[in-house]
């Protein structure tokens, strides 16, 4: 499991042969491969998070800025063992009984204010922020009882229930951002000023935020990794209008736009511009899925044959080619195919087949009326991406071809969240859930039952399958990694067989940058990593 997946391995090998080639070129006098120190990188930012503390808010919007300032215990890596590279922790191991995990911490690390980093900071972050406050940590660390600190460089996590170390390990990059105890121990954590002006151990220090205009980060000269970072400054230019990023790149007002801030439709055009490059790498561990959420409270949709018919009515190749312009791949199930540990293609499939879909609907007893309509539905596409809205329009047509009349209801983010996850006022919805490296982090919640109304990005469609719940519960407490993987493979097959929701496609984002920016996309979470080795070729 050293490499992320087959494609990544190829990419990595291609990358290393390129490195060899450039090393060879160096001998002949080409200076381009030696990183240059200094310079300012200006990147586009499409939002200004209300809280920049990644120990409280583990989201890509926060990480995009804060990951350069505040570091996790370990970061995702293409090459490292278990897909990880050490950051604030240098080694980690889990006890066989699943009741403890030990982290050896890095020596000689200081906070940006000069105070030394110790195991106290890790214990404080875990017990006072990750477990009680963090959107992901509240689930992953729910059984965390205490963190022992036998010495300054050792932190021992103790759990009240057996907790799979594999899950903790997979979650390290996203949920273990460490913040300084000495800054957070006084007063209310939620209103600490450091939530807006983070203090960390990372390669860049937070310098200033001009609301509505920019964030500025500056080089941390005391960074623990020698000779890093390369850049002097990173500036996040706030461009709320997505159309603005492409223009700003062309006019050289910014040098990089991550997270597909340049819309897919503009890529072909901007690719023609000299010195601008399109990079799809660096999002392998941030895969989004395009999913049709189903409200099983609707009598028609509670019938498996109807759900199968809908799956057969969707032409995934068309979706990938036309909506994602090729920058996506068809999804086989709830785990994306680029996951190195859990993915299995060995699941039931529903190839595009309108005739089969019609037969299934006929069998289910939903005959066409005089207008050719079997029944009508309310379809709510999530407003978060162009692609989710466009897929909503496509799905309406696809459903029409099998006699299901879907009425599209467009909402903004707040209204969509409430309609789907609290009020259940939908029949079908289009959602873009994120896969976070382990099915237990935010994937099983999409199909497990008995969740109260109001849980965002969870099963609010009323789907309830005791067999599925039992499988999810068993996998959650299984400690043996191999056994755990086998259970999640079974889970994927069960989801695909019973269709609590329909996984249509999976995609990563696109980075568009000036050719001068180097080392883009060299880790699986590149856009939300620390950019210490990013440099500008002048």
């Amino acid at each position, binding site marked *: 499991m050293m490499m992320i997946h087959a494609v990544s391995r190829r990419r990595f090998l291609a990358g290393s042969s390129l490195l060899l080639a450039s090393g060879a070129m160096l001998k002949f006098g080409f200076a381009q491969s030696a990183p240059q120190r200094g310079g300012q990188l*200006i990147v586009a930012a499409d*939002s*200004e*998070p*209300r*809280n920049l503390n990644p120990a409280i*808010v*583990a*989201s*890509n*919007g926060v990480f995009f800025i804060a990951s350069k300032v505040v570091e996790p215990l370990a970061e995702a890596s293409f090459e490292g063992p278990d897909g990880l590279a050490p950051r604030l922790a240098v080694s980690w191991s889990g006890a066989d009984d699943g009741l403890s995990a030990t982290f050896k911490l890095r020596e000689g690390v200081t906070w940006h204010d000069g105070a030394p980093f110790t195991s106290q900071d890790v214990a404080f972050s875990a017990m006072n922020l990750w477990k009680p406050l963090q*959107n*992901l940590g*509240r*689930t992953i660390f729910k059984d965390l009882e205490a963190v022992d600190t036998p010495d300054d460089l050792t932190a021992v996590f103790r759990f009240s229930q057996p907790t799979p170390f594999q899950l903790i390990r997979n979650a390290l990059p996203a949920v273990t951002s460490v913040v300084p105890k000495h800054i957070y121990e006084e007063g209310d954590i*939620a*209103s600490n000023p450091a*939530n*807006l002006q983070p203090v960390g151990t990372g390669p860049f220090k937070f310098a*200033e935020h*001009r*609301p*509505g*205009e*920019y964030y*500025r980060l500056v080089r941390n000269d005391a960074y623990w990794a020698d000779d890093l970072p390369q850049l002097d400054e990173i*500036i996040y*230019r*706030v*461009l*709320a*209008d997505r*159309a*603005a990023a492409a*223009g*700003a790149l*062309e*006019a050289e*007002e910014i040098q990089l736009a991550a997270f597909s801030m340049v819309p897919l439709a503009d890529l072909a055009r901007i690719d023609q511009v000299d010195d601008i490059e399109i990079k799809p790498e660096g999002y392998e561990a941030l895969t989004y899925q395009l999913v049709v959420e189903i409200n099983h409270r609707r009598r028609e949709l509670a019938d498996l044959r109807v759900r199968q018919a809908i799956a057969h009515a969707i032409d995934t190749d068309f979706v990938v080619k036309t909506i994602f312009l090729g920058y996506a791949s068809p999804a086989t199930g709830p785990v994306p195919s680029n996951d190195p540990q859990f993915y299995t293609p060995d699941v039931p499939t529903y190839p595009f087949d309108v005739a089969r879909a019609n037969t299934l609907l006929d069998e289910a007893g939903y005959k066409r009326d005089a207008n050719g309509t079997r029944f009508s539905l309310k379809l709510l596409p999530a407003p*978060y991406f162009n692609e989710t809205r466009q897929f909503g329009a496509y799905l309406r047509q696809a459903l029409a071809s099998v006699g299901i009349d879907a009425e599209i209801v467009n*909402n*903004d*983010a*707040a*209204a*969509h*969240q*409430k*309609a789907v*996850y609290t009020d259940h006022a939908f029949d079908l919805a289009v959602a873009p859930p*994120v896969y976070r490296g382990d099915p237990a*982090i*935010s994937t099983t919640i999409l199909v497990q039952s008995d*969740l*109260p*109304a*109001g*849980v*965002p*990005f969870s099963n609010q469609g009323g789907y309830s399958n005791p067999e599925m719940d039992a499988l999810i519960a068993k996998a959650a407490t299984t400690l043996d990694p191999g056994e755990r993987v086998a259970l999640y493979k079974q889970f994927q097959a069960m989801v695909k067989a019973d269709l609590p929701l329909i996984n249509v496609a999976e995609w990563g984002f696109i980075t568009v940058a000036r050719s001068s920016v180097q080392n883009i996309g060299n880790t699986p979470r590149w856009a939300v990593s620390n950019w210490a080795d990013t440099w500008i070729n002048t």
Partner: protein
Amino acid sequence: MNRVLGLIGRRLLASMFVLGLVVVGTFFLLEAAPGDAVDAYAAALGAGDAGLTAELRAQWGLDQSPWARLLAYGYALAHLDLGRSLIFSRPNLEIIRERLPNTLLLMGTATALSFGLGSLLGIWAGARPGSFRDRLLSIGSLALYAIPGFWLGLVLLVVFAIELRWLPLSGIETIASGKQGFARGADIARHLVLPVGALSLIYLALYLRVMRAAMAEAWRQDFVLAAKARGIPRRRIVLGHVARNAMMPLVTMLGLQSAAMLGGSIVIESVFAIPGLGRLAYEAVAGRDTSLLMGIILVSAVLVIAINLAVDLLYAWLDPRVGANTTGVA
């Protein structure tokens, strides 16, 4: 002078009532929108559990009834406290104070430019109604007026900022430039050229057409005939008699447009990435940040009321009949 003071007093009294209506109206409008600030925030979080959203609602005071929240807001407002923003977790007043100058600068420059240039061109066109230049200006202004503001903004961007690179693409000033004094002023002016151009070109057409129409109307009045009969030179008739009387509807328009400009600046501020009140209002609605939105609307309402008061005073100066209630003339 008494006439003016009386006018101001009456307007201030009416304004308080208007402001109260604005507060309550905004509150219930946003209350009627589905979803609250926590729902909007949950979308950005990307994951969570039931306990988290409940805790956030309690923390942000959203677990209270709408009436209790409105009452609390009114109480704070009576103590001149605009509250704290939920989406920025900072005091509303501080946020609005940062953004207001940008919007005022954008709006003020655009209004002054379109009003000044529009009325001048209107006078020029209306001096000889039906002439070639009148027709040319009429057609030109109609074409301009028909163009949507955001489209004009984008075209200006593509031509002058991306292709020719004469002017900066976006923002109110060069980021983190450290410029001070005159250099900073010049930098801001360069950044304002395109957005002000886009905003004022459209309103210029409006002022031009209103002025021109009012001029044409004034030419048919008896006092113009009388002035002609008295042998007053045409130039003086145009400026002193026709144009001065034609100014009245234009001044009315100025008052009305100042409110519309605040709205129009949302689009222009978004296209040009200018951190102003318009974009802030959009973010407040998207994030269901009721107190921030009410703060913005209140400040905007005060602005519009102040501008209209100034317009009324200008009116009183242009037309002695205005505000003199004793004469009984409307």
